[in-house]
C-alpha cells in the first residue's frame, strides 16, 4: 500500500523512529514548565533566607551578624511569596495549553501545597509561645522543610518523575540530619544542601528538556 496522499515520502525505519522521538521530545518540552522557573526561585529563597537565619540565630545562641531580629523571617517570607508567584505563573502558563485530567492533576497538586502549609502553620502557631525561641524556630523550619520534601516525593510519584522524587528524598534526609544536629546548624544545612538541591534540580531538569 502507498501513502494516501502525496505528502513527503516516507523515511526509512530508523529515520522514522528518530522523527517520532524528536516530535515527542518537542511536545513534551513545550508542555513542561521550565524547571529553572519552578526550582530556582525556591532554591534562592532557601539559600538566602536560611543563611540569614544562620547568621542571626546561629548554633548555641551565637550571633554571627547582628541583624535586626525581624530580618531573617521577613526576608524568607518575602522570598517564598515571590517564589510562589513565579512558579504559579510558570505552571499555569503551561497548563493552559492542555485540558483534561493532567490539568486537574496539576491543580490538585498545587492546591495540596497551600492546604498542607496552612495546616502546618496553624498547628505550629499553637506551640510557638510554649517553646524556647530556638526550638520554636526549629519546629517551624523543620516542619516546613519536611512537608516540602514529602510533597516533592509525592509529585515524583504522581508524574513518575524520578528526579523530583530524589529531590524530595534528599530534602527529607538533610532536614532530619539538621534537626538532629540542632538549631542554627539546621538553618545552614537547609540553606546550602536544601537550597542547593533545588537549584541543582532546576539545572538537571533544564538540561534534560533542552
Amino acid at each position, binding site marked *: 500500500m502507498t*501513502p494516501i496522499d502525496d*505528502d513527503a515520502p516516507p*523515511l526509512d525505519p530508523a529515520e*522514522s523512529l528518530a522523527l517520532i522521538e524528536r*516530535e515527542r521530545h518537542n511536545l513534551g518540552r513545550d*508542555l513542561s514548565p521550565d524547571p529553572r522557573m519552578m526550582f530556582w526561585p525556591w532554591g534562592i529563597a532557601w539559600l538566602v533566607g536560611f543563611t540569614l537565619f544562620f547568621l542571626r540565630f546561629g548554633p548555641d545562641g551565637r550571633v554571627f551578624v547582628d541583624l535586626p531580629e525581624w530580618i531573617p523571617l521577613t526576608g524568607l517570607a518575602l522570598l517564598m511569596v515571590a517564589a510562589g508567584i513565579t512558579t504559579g505563573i510558570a505552571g499555569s502558563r503551561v497548563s493552559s495549553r492542555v485540558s483534561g485530567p493532567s490539568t486537574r492533576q496539576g491543580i490538585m497538586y498545587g492546591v495540596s501545597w497551600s492546604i498542607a502549609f496552612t495546616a502546618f502553620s496553624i498547628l505550629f502557631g499553637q506551640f510557638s509561645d510554649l517553646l524556647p525561641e530556638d526550638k520554636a524556630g526549629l519546629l517551624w523550619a523543620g516542619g516546613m522543610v519536611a512537608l516540602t520534601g514529602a510533597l516533592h516525593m509525592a509529585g515524583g510519584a504522581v508524574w513518575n518523575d524520578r528526579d523530583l522524587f530524589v529531590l524530595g528524598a534528599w530534602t527529607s534526609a538533610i532536614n532530619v540530619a539538621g534537626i538532629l544536629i540542632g538549631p542554627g546548624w539546621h538553618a545552614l544545612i537547609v540553606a546550602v544542601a536544601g537550597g542547593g538541591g533545588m537549584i541543582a534540580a532546576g539545572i538537571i531538569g533544564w538540561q534534560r528538556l533542552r
Partner: protein
Amino acid sequence: MSDNSEPLVTELDPVIHAQARLRVVSALSVLGEHDRITFPQLQESLRMTAGNLSVHLRKLEDAGYVEVTKTHQGRTPATLVRLTRRGRLAFDDYTAALRALLNP
C-alpha cells in the same frame, strides 16, 4: 537488520505512513489518554502552518485517529485535539512495526 524496504510499504499503516501525519500523531502520543491540546500549541510545537495542520488533522479524524473539539476557554473559542484510543493503538502498532523492521 533488514535493508529491504518492501515490507515497509506493504505492512505499515498508510494513514500515518506520511511524514507530516506521523509527526502529528507522535506529538499527540505524549498527551495523557484523555488530555486535549490546544490547536495553536500543537501547531507551534510541530512548526506547521495552520492550514497544513488542519488538512492532516482532517485526514486523521476521518480515520478515527484523532478527535477535534471546538469549545470555549472563557470567552475565546478554542480548538482542542486529542489522540483517540484507536489512534494510539495505530501509533503503537506503527512504532512496533518500525522496530521489527530494524531488528527482525
